[in-house]
């Protein structure tokens, strides 16, 4: 039982990172209807930039943290301006493939600058575990979870109450109507890429503190799809819950498969099997907007 409890807690932590990445994905999808296959690579770039500033340049962690966020803003803006804006109005496949191309470019830039070996962040939080419900949990895990929850609260409030947040929701609902009300839709697009880049970078930094980072981190981006499909592609709450559920399911399934059938590496596909099942029975997820079409 304790084995499964441990898996559950690990799943929650991994899941909270999935939720963060999914949050970035959903913000972009909601506002611009772009499916971003480069989300995982944005996480990776953020993690490596923070690593470079902290370890290679020797800056204090907090300074490099905020510098990374500033860098993410620039990254998000330039990606939106240079890559996505020329493709407004193009078919879905072109938009998907441009983000796929972008992801390979980002990945190869990271590989050229930092190589492919695992890089470890300096220890920021104490290593001694905290005991929660009889399970040892590393403080960094708790920090990750709390930070993720905090970000979600902040963004929910932002979208609900701030002027810009409301403008973003209006754009998501109906671009033409939003434009005729004087909302700069292009600015909203740029802003959503910025926010997504910031959130991804934070996710990357947290991951770096937990596991260390390597050039394969971008695969995380593919794990986002089960999470967002489960939650509903255009729902923030869905992204949060979807990420957590996928994280937990993945860990528990993996553990169960290992214990019951001694099947290794089931973690890689568990989420996608869940994904296929959801697509079959409830394709718009838990909270997504259903599109109804009739002939």
């Amino acid at each position, binding site marked *: 039982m304790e084995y499964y409890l441990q898996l559950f807690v690990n799943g929650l932590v991994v899941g909270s990172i999935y939720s963060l990445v999914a949050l970035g994905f959903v913000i972009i999808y909601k506002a611009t209807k772009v*499916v971003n296959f480069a989300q995982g690579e944005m996480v990776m770039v953020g993690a490596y930039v923070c690593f470079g500033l902290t370890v290679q340049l020797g800056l204090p962690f907090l300074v490099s943290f905020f510098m990374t966020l500033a860098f993410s803003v620039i990254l998000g803006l330039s990606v939106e301006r240079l*890559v996505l804006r*020329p*493709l407004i109005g*193009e078919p*879905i*496949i*072109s938009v*998907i*493939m*441009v983000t*796929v*191309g*972008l*992801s*390979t*470019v980002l*990945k*190869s*830039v990271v*590989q*050229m600058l930092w190589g*492919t070996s695992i890089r470890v962040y300096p220890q920021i939080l104490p290593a001694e575990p905290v005991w929660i419900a009889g399970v040892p949990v590393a403080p960094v895990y708790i920090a990750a979870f709390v930070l993720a929850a905090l970000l979600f609260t902040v963004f929910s409030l932002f979208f609900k109450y701030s002027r810009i947040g409301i403008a973003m929701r209006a754009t998501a609902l109906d671009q033409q109507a939003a434009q005729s009300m004087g909302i700069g839709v292009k600015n909203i697009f740029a802003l959503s890429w910025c926010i997504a880049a910031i959130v991804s970078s934070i996710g990357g930094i947290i991951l770096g503190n937990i596991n260390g980072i390597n050039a394969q981190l971008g695969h995380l981006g*593919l794990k986002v*799809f*089960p999470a967002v*499909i489960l939650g509903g*592609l255009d729902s923030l709450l869905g992204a949060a819950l979807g990420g957590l559920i996928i994280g937990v399911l993945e860990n528990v399934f993996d553990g169960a498969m290992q214990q019951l059938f001694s*099947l*290794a*590496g089931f973690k*890689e*596909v568990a989420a*996608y*099997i869940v*994904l*296929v099942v959801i*697509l*079959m029975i409830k*394709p718009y997820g838990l909270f997504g907007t259903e599109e109804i*079409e009739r*002939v």
Partner: protein
Amino acid sequence: MRGKCGLFHTSYAQEARFFQTGFLKFSLGLFFIALLCTPLYLSNYQLSMLNMINIAVIGAVALNLLTGCCGQISLGHGAFIGVGAYATGLCSLAGWPFIPALLFGGLVTALVGMIFGVPSLRLKGIYLAIATLAAQLILSYVFMHWESMTGGSVGLGLDAPAICGLALDSDAKMFYLTLTVAVFSVLLVSNILRTRHGRAFVAIRDFHQSAESVGVNLFSYKLQAFAVSSFLAGISGGLWAHYTMYITPEQFDILLSIRYLAMIIIGGMGSVLGSIFGAVFVTLLPEGLGALAQWAGAFFPNISTYFLAMREGIFGLILVLFLIFEPEGLVHRWRLIKAYWKLYPFAY
């Protein structure tokens, strides 16, 4: 036709003709005679490139039928090619003759493709793309972990194919086989596009609701598109497996799917000629970059260390640039060039 200054269709049959002009027939004939003679004057390395191009052409034409013509985005094409490769390889290892094994591999892949095509009834656009992405990742996992069948990460070793006792053990012999199959697939897909089926595929891509309201059965036609496309993908995989004589799960990962999608985008979506251009371009790109790196190595000695990381990045960059600056692909450029030379030296 003599004495006319252009190509004017006066009937539908004329418009649907396979060879629009005698000149086209003649020049294609010359091109094929030249191709058939290539083993006489090309080196083995160059022939192996041609073989890879032929195999890629089969896969790209297949994907273009599904994604370019029918509009069903598939991110699982690489895995379908893998299914074909493993099915054909396993049949050959079980002692089947080559051609039945290849066809059986194609059929198995068609079946797998249809299974993963079933969600396409309910899902479209990005939902389907994500469903096929899941197919890709699940199939990759199966290749890697069903060790009793696929050999796991060690892979499968195969023999050179033999047809009626004639072992195709050199690049030149293999070239004739791959060329035949590639020509056959190109003819098949071109001809499908000229039939009711092809028009139904295009109608589904352009607007599925109107297609359904004029009597196109969406489910049946989408499944047919998946079946034909996966069948050809399986054939391509089977040929690839027997050509390289060794298959591992890493060959058929998501990068392969992306390469094939890149082929049809760079070549031109929805065009058979475009898939051929794209296949040639994407297959030759790493070689071209390699040559470039070797040449640049004379000036920057440590460029080769960066080269591996750069190769994928340059590939992605080219893909992005094509999407931004030439979204209709090489085939569009080809048409512009043809139109220019048609009236040369008079502008109008």
